[in-house]
């Protein structure tokens, strides 16, 4: 059996994904209370068409589209990077509590009343807590952690972050703030402005650059940490950089969107049959897949008929969790012997 698709096929898949993301982005700009045709969207995007269309596309919908693209992309990229770092197909930011911890940081800022849309308190708190959570995970699980250890530690950390968030809500004096936090936690891209984009994007881009800069090290890491080190990879430094990259990207994203789960887990899995298992080659396609998934989910919440808004974070988890269960069933054998 030939396992790795050739370079031509990989390039085709990546190009196809990029086109898909482009189409979904246009779709995301076209769909809403006022339906616009794709042509009108493109025209309005570049300053043509009527004033109303321009305002709808450029000011109301574009920030949401950009955020869906960037946050979906960084989640997919972070998932692929963590799976590469830990050489483990079940690794993902949400499974390890990074988004939940970032959410706790952000919630704390909201409850304290420091979360002005112009201030960087929200992303900084989110990033800090995401960093702490991934760092804690690796510290608790140890250097050559098996599957079971990682999942247990991740479960503990995300539960702790959830409990800390609940405590903040519990102690919050203002019931409206509590309600705001509760809805914010569900994860949404609604009513986001360019201020939110400016708040999150620098961190997401910085995180993405950091993760991409380490991509070839993930390939060497396929042979284990010791061999990678003997090939010239500074494994300790790599770990820190990946933790920092994931924390920056996921923390920055979560700070404006709330928690959006399971995209980071799912995206690399969707790509492996098409791209192969090389962890370095999975990064860009996983980012594109993550972007496509979040754009699609964010379009879906606008199309699904319901009495109140469905939050996009709820939708990704509703779809993502069954997929995760399917993965566990598929990896059952490895999990059964995964203690060692």
């Amino acid at each position, binding site marked *: 059996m030939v396992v790795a698709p050739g370079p031509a096929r990989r390039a085709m898949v990546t190009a196809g994904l990029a086109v898909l993301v482009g189409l979904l982005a246009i779709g995301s700009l076209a769909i809403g209370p006022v339906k616009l045709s794709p042509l009108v969207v493109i025209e309005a995007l570049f300053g043509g068409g009527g004033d109303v269309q321009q305002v709808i596309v450029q000011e109301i919908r574009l920030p949401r589209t950009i955020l869906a693209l960037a946050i979906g992309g960084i989640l997919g990229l972070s998932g692929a990077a963590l799976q590469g770092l830990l050489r483990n197909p079940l690794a993902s930011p949400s499974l390890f509590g990074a988004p939940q911890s970032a959410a706790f940081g952000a919630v704390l800022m909201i409850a304290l009343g420091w979360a002005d849309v112009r201030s960087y308190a929200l992303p900084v708190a989110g990033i800090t807590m995401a960093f702490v959570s991934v760092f804690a995970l690796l510290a608790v699980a140890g250097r050559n952690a098996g599957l079971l250890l990682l999942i247990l530690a991740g479960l503990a950390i995300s539960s702790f972050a959830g409990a800390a968030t609940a405590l903040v809500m519990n102690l919050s004096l203002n019931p409206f703030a509590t309600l705001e936090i509760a809805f914010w936690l569900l994860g949404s891209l609604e009513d986001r402005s360019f201020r939110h984009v400016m708040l999150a994007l620098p961190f997401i881009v910085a995180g993405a650059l950091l993760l991409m800069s380490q991509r070839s090290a993930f390939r060497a890491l396929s042979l284990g940490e010791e061999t990678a080190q003997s090939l010239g990879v500074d494994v300790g430094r790599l770990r820190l950089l990946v933790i920092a990259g994931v924390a920056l990207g996921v923390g920055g994203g979560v700070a404006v969107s709330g928690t959006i789960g399971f995209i980071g887990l799912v995206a690399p899995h969707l790509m492996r049959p098409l791209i*192969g*298992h090389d962890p370095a080659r999975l990064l860009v396609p996983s980012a594109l897949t993550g972007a496509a998934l979040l754009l699609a989910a964010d379009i879906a919440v606008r199309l699904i008929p319901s009495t109140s808004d469905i939050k996009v974070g709820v939708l990704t988890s509703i779809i993502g969790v069954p997929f995760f269960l399917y993965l566990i069933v598929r990896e059952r054998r490895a999990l059964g012997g995964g203690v060692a």
Partner: protein
Amino acid sequence: MSESPFVRTEHLGVSLSGRAVLRDVTIELPRRHLVALVGPNGAGKTTLLRALAGLIPSQGSVTIDGVALSALPLRERAKRFGYLPQGHLVHWPLPVRDVVALGRYPHGATDPARLSPHDEAAVARAMAATDVVQFGDRSVTELSGGERSRVALARVLAVEAPVLLADEPTASLDPRYQIDVMRTLRAAADAGTLVVVVTHDLGLAARFADSVLVLSDGQLVAHGAPEVALSDRIMAEVFRVSAYRAAHQDSAVILPWAGV
């Protein structure tokens, strides 16, 4: 020239969580030499190999060609020391050729799909030497244990480092593969590489090695030609066995025979 020391250690020691697992190892190893590193379980063989490759912190000094290991950046070390750990682990089902091509990583060839002709040639040589050319496109995870260990050997040969450190490369292989692996390492040594092999197989050590290092309880207790280093006294004191000795086709035959 070939007998002048190439890798030299002075008072090399390693402590793991406060316990000295390697003490005061001073050795000089020339190029074009196959060295067998032997000793009972827990004697510190793997630790010595790791310390030589600079993979763990150590006391004392290691120099290669007169340059202190500690003065070399990680990538420069990686170019000089090829390291093959036990287990031959590959975490993802990667194609065999890509795994072997990772041997060129220290030389800046980080993408197996884009190798320079020079790197490509090194990969081809390594795959030919270990006879894995025919499964270059197959996934390394679907190979048998013996095939996988040959791929791992090809990976470390592809580094084309002047020093090759191999930790039990013949473990869990059938006799034919054990001989093939030792022959490949012997050929690398004859071509100018300093090869250090950890092994529990004293017979293979005696037959293929130019010299044998015997470690016991973290200390070097013997170093010399196989018949000298694996003397009756060492066999009895370190390995607690007696040995059957003979010569066959100009090679020493040393066979652990009975417990003492």
